[in-house]
């Protein structure tokens, strides 16, 4: 039981870490209030459910006379059978899907911010949220894209492993990808580009004064952020072996926009280590609630599902963080550029970045 809980925590830690790190680049570093983060996860799911399945249907020449959903399960079954005998095929499926998802995520991210890239942050947030909600709704209402309500079946890239072990290997794959994402963002944001983002967050005019195009920086940031987060949509689909649009309908904004924001603010915006800490705490709380939900509900004599309590709890938690600890558990540190490092050494600057003496 406890073993299962820990494994669950590790799996969701990996998934949420990828999304939160990418949102941290957009919001924590760049100050872009991306209230439509869920769209990038949905893009990953669309790549698996709408593109990969179609490629498979074409490869295995499955008849689509009985509808798209039925055809996908036949095609996915064929590939799953093939992977069971040939592990390399499963590996190839995962890598190629991830690459397609990252590419499409980048494109969607860039297009997604184009209409509002020049606008103030409140209009920016409204537009991003509106686009994400509309896109989710179109995927939900249009059965052609990812099978809508009934969903589509997805091949199992770990078909060569059976039973309990498959779950462990899957979690390991997610954790490796999350670790690579962490390294990627650590490297990417410790460059002049990372400092440019922080400058943009503090004051947009500074960016213009130094001759940078605000719109270009924003478009680029959103492209990278959405591309990385699209991986999570792929992993989620491979985890459940199904893609269903209605799983994004009510919970999409909560799970993949609100919770990542909560994680970032909990851990500390603009700092990747804080995001790791925030993700760990958040996912542990979430999974423990999930683990004990039946006993919580019966203890409180509630005639309802525990998910509503979870929403209230996390909503209140967000408000408390905003009010009492807006800088998070691990506050952002000044960037260690060579001059600042020298200043540390000569003790002209304290660890908090405040000048003590001249």
């Amino acid at each position, binding site marked *: 039981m406890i073993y299962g809980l820990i494994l669950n925590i590790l799996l969701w830690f990996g998934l949420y870490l990828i999304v939160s790190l990418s949102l941290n680049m957009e919001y924590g570093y760049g100050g872009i209030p991306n209230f439509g983060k869920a769209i990038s996860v949905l893009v990953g799911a669309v790549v698996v459910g709408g593109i990969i399945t179609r490629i498979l249907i074409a490869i295995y020449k499955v008849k689509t006379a009985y509808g798209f959903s039925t055809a996908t399960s036949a095609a996915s079954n064929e590939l799953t059978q093939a992977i069971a005998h040939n592990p390399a095929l499963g590996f190839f499926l995962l890598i190629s899907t991830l690459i397609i998802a990252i590419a499409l995520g980048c494109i969607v991210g860039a297009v997604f911010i184009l209409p509002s890239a020049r606008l103030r942050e409140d209009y920016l947030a409204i537009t991003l*949220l509106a686009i994400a909600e*509309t896109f989710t709704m179109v995927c939900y209402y249009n059965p052609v894209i990812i099978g809508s309500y009934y969903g589509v079946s997805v091949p199992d890239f770990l078909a060569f492993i059976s039973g309990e072990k498959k779950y462990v290997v899957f979690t390991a794959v997610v954790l490796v990808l999350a670790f690579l994402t962490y390294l990627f963002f650590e490297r990417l944001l410790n460059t002049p580009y990372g400092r440019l983002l922080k400058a943009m967050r503090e004051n947009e005019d500074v960016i213009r004064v130094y001759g940078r195009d605000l719109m270009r920086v924003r478009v680029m940031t959103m492209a990278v952020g959405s591309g990385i987060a699209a991986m999570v949509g792929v992993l989620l689909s491979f985890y459940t072996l199904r893609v269903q649009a209605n799983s994004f309908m009510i919970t999409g904004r909560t799970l993949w926009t609100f919770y990542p924001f909560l994680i970032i603010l909990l851990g500390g915006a603009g700092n990747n280590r804080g995001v790791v800490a925030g993700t760990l705490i958040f996912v542990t709380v979430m999974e423990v609630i999930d683990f004990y939900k039946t006993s919580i509900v019966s203890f409180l004599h509630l005639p309802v599902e525990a998910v*509503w*309590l979870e929403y209230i709890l*996390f909503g209140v938690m967000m*408000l408390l963080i905003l009010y009492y600890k807006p800088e998070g558990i691990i506050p952002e540190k000044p960037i260690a550029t060579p001059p600042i490092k020298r200043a540390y050494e000569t003790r002209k600057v304290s660890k908090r970045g405040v000048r003590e003496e001249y």
Partner: protein
Amino acid sequence: MPGMEVLTGALIYSNLLVLLAVGLTLAYITTAVPNFAQGSFAVVGSYTALTIYRLFNIHPYVSLPIAFLAGGITGLASYVLVLKPLIKRGASVVTLMIATLALDLILLGLRGIYAGYLGKLTGSSCEMFMFTYLDFPILGVPGILVISTLVIILTFSVLFTLLYKTKFGIALRASMENPDLAEVMGVNVEYTRMFAWFLAGALAAMAGCLLPFKQEIVPSTAEIIIVSIFAASIVGGLNNIYGALIGGYIVGMSESLFTYYLSTIFGAGMLVYGKVVALAIIIVTLLVAPQGIISVDWKKLYRRWFS
């Protein structure tokens, strides 16, 4: 030509959107924060009406004033408990927006729990409901059209009288135009903000009370409608109350009529894409006239094009 049914449906929807957008705009003008929980305020009204109908068998039209109060209290509580402490701490706009997102999530959770309780109490599920079967024709047109139009007329005449004929209205307008200056002149800006949030919640709840006559209330109603509310406020101009009036009709009519025309060409499947129209309106407005239609200098445009 679309039939009468389509036109009345479009009008009803526009009326409700106006009510929702006015609240959003009022809260934005006074506190400078786009309220992402506006859709949930509407759902408060829907559930107030449902509770009164199921428990006391009172028609939802009669419970409009109670919905007004319930929504108003929700709006006021949201401001006093959530936003005011943050504003006092000098929180940024983004922080306030995230706070309204959190508020929306809390209201969604409360809705779920309340619907569960009400369902258990009345013995039938309260997750999805409609009031269409309760409607009756007034003078040959659907009752909901008459009632929603009356509510709009009443709201705007009261609002107009309040803003332009009373001392409180002058103070209110002053603190909307320039909060700092108004404060120097002895206006308590806090009151105007509280008033605006009360009204935002109250008007939204009235719209929510009437919404089940037009479409089904589902757990995701608040999320579905928020795009249209923002579209209405933005196209009219987020900085002007009358912008919400114009914007509500533009978005409501084009959502209904445009999807209707598409459905005559491509089939009934197009009717669900109303939100795509709303989104397109937001984007076009932001690209062409970011301050909304109300800010466009029509005389200047006319002179440029026709002389």
